[in-house]
């Protein structure tokens, strides 16, 4: 099976970005719909009060709390959209891994909501700042989650374990079952290998080890130079 070229990867990446933004904008719309109905309910109760009908004023406090909750929710979704949109720039390649994975798993939950997936992220060495292309990194993690969860029928938990060494970091994504052995899984694996090449890294697939499947990414810390090429490792990272 031939791997996607760099150009194909960028084209597929743009389509993928479009999918992410569509998923997130749908979630934002959901949040606005809730706010809209809560505001309408507020108006209903106030109208009852003005009409001197029986009403529960304490309910207004609950409604205000809910409105604020969903406004915050909408704000987080917008921040996620911003993060993904700017991630394609590749100019600012340093990011906090924990924050990035939080955004990525949030998008995954929305995108794959029918699969009932929960995530556990582990940082045995603390939460590092890493340097790599943020979009290709996010794309790789999301594709990996997709192939790790597409065959399951029950609720499932995906574990993402992150380890950092001096000049690289390692991400292991594990689930009890995956579709890696299928034809579709192999196609995704081919794309993942190309993404790792773009990031200057590599991957390893572990099937049915202790009743779990895992994909492990090994990614060196690198940044882009003025010509848009990945350079060698930057020293002095935390």
């Amino acid at each position, binding site marked *: 099976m031939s791997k996607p070229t760099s150009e194909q990867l960028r084209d597929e990446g743009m389509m993928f970005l479009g999918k992410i933004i569509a998923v997130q904008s*749908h979630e934002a*719309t*959901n949040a*606005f*719909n*809730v706010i*809209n*109905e*809560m505001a*309408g*309910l507020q108006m*209903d109760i106030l109208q*009852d009060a003005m009409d001197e009908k029986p009403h529960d004023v304490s309910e207004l406090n609950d*409604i205000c709390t*809910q409105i604020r*909750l*969903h406004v915050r929710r909408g704000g987080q979704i917008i921040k996620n959209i911003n993060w993904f949109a700017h991630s394609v720039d590749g100019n600012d390649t340093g990011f906090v891994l924990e924050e990035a994975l939080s955004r990525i798993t949030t998008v995954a939950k929305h995108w794959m*909501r*029918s699969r*009932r997936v929960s995530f556990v992220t582990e940082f045995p060495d603390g939460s590092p700042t890493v340097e790599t292309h943020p979009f290709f990194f996010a794309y790789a993690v999301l594709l990996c989650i997709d192939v790790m969860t597409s065959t399951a029928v029950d609720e499932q938990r995906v574990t993402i374990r992150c380890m950092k060494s001096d000049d690289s970091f390692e991400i292991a994504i594990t689930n009890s079952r995956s579709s890696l052995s299928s034809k579709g899984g192999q196609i995704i694996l081919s794309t993942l290998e190309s993404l790792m090449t773009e990031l200057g890294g590599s991957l390893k697939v572990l099937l049915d080890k202790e009743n779990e499947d895992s994909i492990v990414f090994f990614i060196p810390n690198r940044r882009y130079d003025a010509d848009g090429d990945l350079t060698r490792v930057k020293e002095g990272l935390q």
Partner: protein
Amino acid sequence: MKKVRVLFADDEQGLVSAVVRRLTLRNIIACGVTSILDALRKMDEEIFDVAVLDVRMPDIGGLDVLRRFRNKYPDVEVILLSGHGSVENVEEAERLGAFEYLQKPVEIEDLVSVIHEAAAKSGRAQHE
């Protein structure tokens, strides 16, 4: 006066709570659930005139929802709510027997109006 009994299903809990409350304030007996499986369970337990269902639910999505409801509860009129319905979806929904296919956000007064029209057509109106 007959009170209409409505089952409202959407996976957004906040939306379900607000809409059920607003329908109740408008003299409709409303029950809310956040999954199609819970909706089907409620339909087995209680009598409803109208079901208002979000098309895009995580457990059973799309027009499969409508097929299941129309097969199992042919006397209950179904109103579908969608965030973005194509013309094809609307036509398919009408062919499968949806009473109405509404785009979110729906004004509460419009929803109440459609619910009453659907209840009038329903063969299982609850008497009070």
